């Protein structure tokens, strides 16, 4: 799939929804629980979390790949770990800035 910054996607194995913050310049497969994410408004049959793809996606956390080419923000939490072309995404640990606001 071609990812684009701002695109909202949802999991078919759980309640997870994400928004793409940084997209790679080539097509990739973004999965949750082993199944590809679909457009937020698409009506598709639901599935099960595949073995080896268990895990939770947490509200408000940002997930990135090791290369830093993909970043998504979780807008609704759910089960089924996120992965890109089979590589699990990790929670991005942001260096907290002092509150300026």
């Amino acid at each position: 799939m071609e990812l684009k910054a701002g695109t909202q996607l949802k999991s078919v194995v759980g309640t997870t929804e994400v928004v793409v913050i940084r997209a790679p310049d080539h097509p990739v497969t973004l999965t949750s629980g082993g199944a590809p994410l679909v457009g937020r408004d698409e009506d598709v049959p639901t599935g099960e979390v595949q073995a080896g793809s268990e895990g939770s996606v947490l509200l408000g956390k940002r997930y990135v790949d090791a290369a830093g080419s993909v970043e998504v923000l979780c807008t609704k939490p759910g089960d089924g770990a996120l992965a890109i072309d089979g590589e699990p995404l990790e929670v991005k640990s942001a260096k907290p800035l002092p509150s300026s606001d």
Partner: protein
Amino acid sequence: MYLGLILDMTHDGLGDRSAVTIDGRTVDHAELAERSWAASARFLELGVPSVVYLGTNHIAFPVALFGAAGAGIPFIPLNYRLGADQLATQLDAHPGSFVIYEGEPPVSATPGRSAERQAFVDSLDTVGAEPPSPPDPDATCLLLYTSGTTAAPKAAVLRHRHLMSYLLGTVEFAGADEDEVSLVSVPPYHVAGVANLLSNLYAGRRIIYIDRFDPQVWLGIVRDEKVTQAMVVPTMLAQIVDHLREADDADTPSLRTLSYGGARMPEPVLHRALELFSTTGFVNAYGLTETSSTIALLGPDEHRAAFDSDDPVARARLGSVGRLVPGVEIEVRDDGGGVLEVGRPGLVFLRGDQISGEYAGVALLEEDGWFPTRDRGWIDEDGYVFIEGRADDTIIRGGENIAPAEIEDVLLSHDGIVDAVVVGLPDDQWGQRLVAVVVPGEGAATDAEELRALVRARLRSSKTPEAVEFWPELPRTDTGKLLRRVVVSRLSGA
């Protein structure tokens, strides 16, 4: 990326946490989101092209802002303190808008397309309110009039993606502890007021609004409500420090962070504040309307390290606006466009996803994304940014570029001076000549000759004002920005 996404998140993730307190009434995140969704539905039903907000801080401010965002139309907070003519001009520039007002409706408001702010909030039914479908992320989210210190105010355009980029780049969702409370005293029409609102909601930090700033009221709320964060503009901090002039300590143990920005902070005020708020972390935030607020920060540890240091280089950092936030780049260029090396002052250019650099109809960004801020400044070898002031304020005397801030700092270092400005007036021999206007403190005894000698000793004779005038106060905007052009025209008319 669409701004309303953050409401979906706060609604689900922070629902029963307190979001905003105003006039003693608190609204939680779920109610705020639902009222905003209902507002979006209202605006879509009416088919209005934009939403104008005319008033002080109130729960109607976030509801109308997010309501407009969800409807995909611009939110336009106007300065309610403007004169009738100027306000009418700005209102006329946005015909057909839904107008939310405080007190009496503006003359141009039409029934059906306007509402008093509390009545507006009360009229929104939260039962069955649903998030609207996301509008185009490239849609205009906010039209903010710049303060217009050097020219007539113009409306800066901030799109959903600019504000979201700022927010996601600098704030962690639900990152605040449950007991964190932020006291906000900047008005809705200021970019810091909008940035404050968004950051605190997204972080899950309760916001308390002060309607109209007063140092005694501000201190009372900090103490009574155990406020943990507060943001002020320099004139407010000056008033707080002045209010505490007999005190050894501000007596605000809950206050973890005090941030300031929006105008240049006079050094003596900052020094006194660092003494009074000895356990509080200070944050200097620098940004422009056109950059979706903060692009550089000087943090608490950096303030204390500079304040406690005897080394002049380290101590000078107190006058810096700190280092860039993630995702923002800086260049300092000379007048011919050449990029200057570290340490050399010139024109400041910025680039990044949060930077809009766009005004109604006109994009100021260069092809490769650089935005000319028209601020003058320089960067030190560790990446600390120093801002000297607006390029338009630079005085050219006998071919020499003179930043007035440098001279103003020297004048302000005199015990008897509470405010100071230096401007250039037309001069046949030098092109421009320097004139200082100062505000003496109560009972202070000084004269023009003493002040000129002070500048001559610290700087050099070409930077010494030819004349020093004494005024009871200087003209400033509501948020503390000095109106230099008013000073110039008063001096020229005299």
